[in-house]
């Protein structure tokens, strides 16, 4: 491939997975991510890897479970309603401690909703979605290049911790075209899968079982505590975020991820022209949530934080938790697929701090 290519977000996701050594892709058409499956259907057979359009999103996530449990890198992608269908499968994958990558190109909800971009699956991704005490590592890119980088990171993180990882974009990121580079990456140091993968005994004495059923409460408690230790490790090691314009004192700090974080950056430039100094915390991992980013600015921010989301307010709850009552937390959002302009966000900032000023 040439050094920099113009690629559509959804297709870049597919190509990034290929670069990461994704052996199997199982998908299903749903707007606005269908191009991921279409791209993989063209590319995977040409390089001797597996593409299958499953009969449903449920079947697709279970195919991922099978492939992942047999030791190969596997990925599926879908959009909100399809991700709802996958929740049982995701819980099983997490419970069996299998690595895999799930891409959610979020659209408006609830129900059939709309096909325009949204961020209303934040709760589903970070607080559960599926049943039981598990967590998904959730990565939120804000550009096609970042999507390429984070998809490749996702496979490494998944293998490192034996956990499913979600890359959460939105309809805009999936559909837009931006220049991307597939940079050389140092291969990650990852544990071997030989100790647990179930791909046939092949001379091994003990059979391997991929399973999440523990009928004895003592055993299930132990399994859960083991997983919680893993999540504590992930919280310590894998938090990612960007601080924008937070070096000096700020009047206000926006908190936003994905597409809308870019619009926030433009709003910040507009506000600077009016002498209002606003910073931005851009979470890149939504789980683990970057609480430490808030420590960097909690004393600096005069009027507190405003969570800006393409939803009715989901991440704002985590912003409140991170702020822990120390500074006020506001919210601005549009929903249903509506995307605010930089001016709208700037006006919302002024409204919120105007009263306090």
């Amino acid at each position, binding site marked *: 491939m040439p050094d920099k290519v113009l690629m559509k977000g959804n297709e870049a996701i597919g190509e990034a997975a290929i670069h990461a050594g994704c052996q199997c892709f199982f998908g299903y058409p749903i707007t606005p991510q269908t191009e991921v499956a279409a791209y993989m259907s063209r590319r995977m057979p040409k390089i001797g890897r597996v593409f299958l359009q499953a009969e449903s999103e449920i079947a697709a996530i279970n195919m991922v479970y099978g492939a992942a449990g047999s030791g190969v890198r596997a990925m599926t992608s879908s959009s909100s309603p399809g991700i709802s269908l996958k929740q049982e499968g995701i819980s099983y994958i997490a419970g069996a401690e299998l690595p895999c990558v799930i891409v959610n190109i979020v659209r408006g909800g609830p129900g059939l909703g709309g096909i325009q971009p949204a961020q209303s699956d934040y709760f589903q991704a970070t607080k559960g979605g599926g049943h039981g005490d598990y967590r998904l590592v959730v990565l939120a890119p804000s550009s096609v290049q970042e999507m390429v980088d984070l998809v490749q990171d996702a496979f490494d993180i998944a293998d490192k911790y034996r956990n499913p990882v979600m890359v959460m974009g939105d309809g805009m990121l999936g559909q837009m075209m931006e220049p991307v580079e597939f940079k050389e990456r140092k291969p990650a140091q990852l544990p071997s899968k030989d100790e647990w993968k179930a791909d046939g005994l092949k001379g091994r004495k003990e059979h391997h*079982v991929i399973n999440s059923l523990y009928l004895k409460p003592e055993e299930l408690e132990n399994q859960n505590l083991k997983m919680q230790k893993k999540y504590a490790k992930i919280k310590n090691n894998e938090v990612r975020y960007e601080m924008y314009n937070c070096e000096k004192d700020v009047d206000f700090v926006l908190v936003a991820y994905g597409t809308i974080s870019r619009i926030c950056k433009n709003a910040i430039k507009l506000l600077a022209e009016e002498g209002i100094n606003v910073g931005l915390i851009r979470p890149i991992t939504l789980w683990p949530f970057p609480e430490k980013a808030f420590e960097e600015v909690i004393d600096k921010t005069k009027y507190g934080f405003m969570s800006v989301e393409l939803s009715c307010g989901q991440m704002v709850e985590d912003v409140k938790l991170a702020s822990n009552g120390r500074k006020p937390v506001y919210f601005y959002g549009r929903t249903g697929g509506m995307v605010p302009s930089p001016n709208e966000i700037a006006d919302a900032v002024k409204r919120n701090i105007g009263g306090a000023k």
Partner: protein
Amino acid sequence: MEVIFQRTKGLLDVPTHYCPGCTHGIIHRLVGETLEELNVIDKTVGVAPVGCSVLAYNYFACDMFEAAHGRAPAVATGIKRSHPDSVVFTYQGDGDLAAIGTAEIVHAATRGENITTIFVNNCIYGMTGGQMAPTTLPGQVTETTPYGRDVKQAGYPIRVSEMLSTLSGAAYVERVSVDSVPNILKAKKAIKKAFELQLQGAGFTMIEVLSICPTNWGLSPLEALKWLRDNMIPYYPLGVKKDITAGEAK
């Protein structure tokens, strides 16, 4: 004297949790023997269902997966597509395969997925205490059809083997029974043929095995075998429903 019948290496030497007389034990043994005789234990991966045989992963000697309810054919697809040289089978009951898993089994069959499904049909949901299954017979009393299955309210049972035999991807579909020693021998032949066809890459193979559930039918194991013969075989006729090696275009 030489040993002419002993426990197969295809099964781990452990006691099972199945009820006395439960035919899961016979069927497990037939699959285990098949894997041993075909010398494929080492490269086989099996997928267990949700149901009484959820713990099948503790009984087979090969690598095993536990799957979500009904999803075993999709899990098997993921395994087989990433390891085409492996032998992959699913082992499913009537709720797993014919209720929640209807889409998965139909699509695995129509894709000609090169896996073997062992479908254990005992006309009832065993593990959860004896509720109606998609295969429960008209008039049959279960926990959720306490007055007998009324087809006007609860619909008709599904003949899965006949249904799947209409699909071009299905290479071999046969219904057998384990109610008698001669039928057990025929069942073993059918299961072995299904796995042999998988080894030849023929496509999707399924053996539906009529089985008993003495506990939830409220019968002794011996009475249950008779109930199977008298009631199930007439509704679910034994025999080959699809065989691409037979030369007919079906």
